[in-house]
């Protein structure tokens, strides 16, 4: 099953604790492509209700412009899950980030609940996406069936800290110990047309460490990365920003491919290197990232 909801590219997704009014209000200024209002780990049990209310009102009353607003609800195994979804869905976020997804059944259950609420509230059917967080060994084993579980699914992501705990290992700054899990998530996501998001880098003072980890994630194929502090956003975005030489080359490839197509040619060469469909696809991705970074790209 191929996902049918195309959400716009998200290089950086900034977590904002849902119980912090001024941070909710200012979340759009830091340059993140998406913001995740958190009702889960950053909110203590006694604050759950207040955070849910605040996020609901923020979604209804603030203008977030072009930025995608995602809400991380509490997991299906908690007493807050249903109430979170019931109150947040009518406020129409771009997506629900679903933690502790172990199997397809978790996504399906959320999908059904969201669908019902969309209907009751007269919302367009299927507009609210789901990002599934895989945080256990079992989830990684089930990754393919999770990726295929729902048309509402728009992205997969890892919960690095929880996964490391489940595996009984220590999460390092480099994150090499999670290489297999990361690749599994990326490959499953790509296979089903989903976005794949890297886990967070927890040391907010180590921007160089963040850069290295983001570069690795970019190289592996993650489409973006979550940030837990506004200062991380620009670092993540910069890793996903092509340099001007890369961009110039990408533009050259796309133009050459268009011309070749018009002239009915198949494989062509640009600067002595063979250009086929995968290379063109890469070039288009580079151009897309350049536009997202605000680089000037003429219409091709």
């Amino acid at each position: 099953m191929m996902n049918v909801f195309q959400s716009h590219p998200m290089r950086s997704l900034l977590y904002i604790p849902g119980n912090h009014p001024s941070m909710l209000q200012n979340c759009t200024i830091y340059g993140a492509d998406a913001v995740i209002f958190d009702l889960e780990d950053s909110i203590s049990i006694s604050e759950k209700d207040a955070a849910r209310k605040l996020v609901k009102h923020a979604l209804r009353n603030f203008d977030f412009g072009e930025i995608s607003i995602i809400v991380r609800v509490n997991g299906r195994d908690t007493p807050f899950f249903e109430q979170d979804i019931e109150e947040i869905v009518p406020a129409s976020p771009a997506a629900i980030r679903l933690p502790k997804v172990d199997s397809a059944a978790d996504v399906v259950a959320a999908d059904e609940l969201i669908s019902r609420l969309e209907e009751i509230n007269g919302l367009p059917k299927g507009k609210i996406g789901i990002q599934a967080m895989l945080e256990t060994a079992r989830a990684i084993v089930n990754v393919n069936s999770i990726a295929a579980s729902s048309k509402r699914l728009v992205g997969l992501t890892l919960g690095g800290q929880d996964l490391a705990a489940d595996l009984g290992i220590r999460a390092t700054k480099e994150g090499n110990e999670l290489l297999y899990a990361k690749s599994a998530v990326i490959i499953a996501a790509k296979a089903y047309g989903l976005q794949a998001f890297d886990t967070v880098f927890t040391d907010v003072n180590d921007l160089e460490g963040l850069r290295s980890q983001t570069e690795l994630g970019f190289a592996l194929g993650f489409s973006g990365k979550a940030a837990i502090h506004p200062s991380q956003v620009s670092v993540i975005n910069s890793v996903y920003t092509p340099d001007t030489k890369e961009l110039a080359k990408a533009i050259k490839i796309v133009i050459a491919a268009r011309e070749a197509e018009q002239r009915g040619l198949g494989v062509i060469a640009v600067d002595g290197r063979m250009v086929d469909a995968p290379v063109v696809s890469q070039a288009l991705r580079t151009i897309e990232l350049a536009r997202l970074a605000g680089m000037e790209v003429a219409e091709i």
Partner: protein
Amino acid sequence: MNYHCVRNSLGRLVPSEIPGLGTTTPFSGAFARLDGSFLWTASPISRRIPAISTNKVASNLQAAIERSGLQNGMTISFHHHLRNGDAIVGLVLSELEKMGFRDLTLAPSSLGDSHDCVADAIKKGVVTRLNTSGVRGEVGKAISNGLLESPAIIRSHGGRARAIEEGSLKIDVAFLGAPACDRLGNMTGVIGNTACGALGYAMVDARYARHVIAITDNLVDYPLSPKISIPQYLVDQVVVVDSIGDPAKIATGATRITKDPLQLYIAELAFKVIKASGYLKNDCSFQTGGGGPSLAVARYMRDYMKANSIKGSYCIGGITGYMADMLKDGLFKTLFDVQSFDAAVTDSILHNPNHMEVDSSWYANPFNKGCLVNDLDVVVLAALDVDVDFNVDVLTGHDGILRGASGGHSDTAAGAKLSLITIPSMRNGVPSIRERVQTVVTPGETVDVIVTERGISVNPKREDLMARLKDSGIPIKDIHKLKEDIESITGIPDEVPFEDEIVGVVEYRDGTIIDSIRKIK
């Protein structure tokens, strides 16, 4: 009391005569008196020549006050280098009250959080007039509620030096806190348990006051060495007390870069403006404050200057440990230090010859033959409110009560080639960009860029700057649009109601009156 008022060039009604200051001149432009034609006469000071003494240490504070010749109705001054740890003002006012003094004019270089005692002295009639740069807490409330007999006079640091030199502020007795002092009155702020750094404001008081009393908790063997900030020939008496202040509050910790993401973001934007402006290059000069976004701007500059091998010329103003580190790293050739924002700076003043202590006249007096701010390239300033004409208020809180300081704000804004105001777009839900600020301290004609987290505005007068920033990717907005964007979130707050009664005036650095402060309803 109501005063006859005239409208100045900003359209503000200001009194034409003020008790203690005499006839005044309304503000008519930031550079109206700086075109080379204005005549300025500094008034001579008459002093009694003291008998030769080899020991100026008085037996106690009371004896020193008696010997100073202080009388009711006279003017006393203090410096604010001990910041929020200062104990001198309280100590002296309490002694003066005990001795039965009344009707004094208090003229400190500024007042801070440790000076609620001044409000008590006002209520008791010990102090009836006030000249200062800043006020906080109870003193602000006392002024705003009209407890002073005549309007408080707010001056900038450069303006105060000018007023003292010209004699419009005549100091009868200066009580100067000295972290280290010897028996003949040589003193410095860079040695001792209560070390505070530079004594730039105190230097002017010492030079012009009729009588100077050094107050120290650290009497050292004569001669004080290796550093003397104020020499013995300016000091009449020395008083030794148990403590001149609380070292923990003298060190304000302003060296720490903020972790607040909003302030960091504003700082990053301000840095981008500085970079795009073209002023950040070899031999540039720079001033920024401590705390808030200001110091964070220095962090971005530091990284950029290091990466691009840029060596600046000098930094001035309130100096933080962070700036001292930049000097040590060779990013600037010289620091000119009029006041130190944290005690960490003392070591640098003491041991680095390129870290120079300067007086407030050298720093910012517009009427001397060349003050340091005149050659500034970039200054980063804070504000409480700004308005659509780029006027800045650094005095009035959103409740209408005075709670800020003029400081070097208007001095540096006038002097620098690029003056930036960093300000969060709203505070506690109240927008920071107003149609008209309550109290103008720094006129809009001297302000170039306003930086908020929701965009920046460039003064339309600066077409050159606008052209340089145009393609920088910085989110530039017309100031009216920026104001509207912010108000779409906050709404437009009701104006705070004021009485007509004038309880203070803001004197611009050149001695003209730029605005009046009204009594709160």
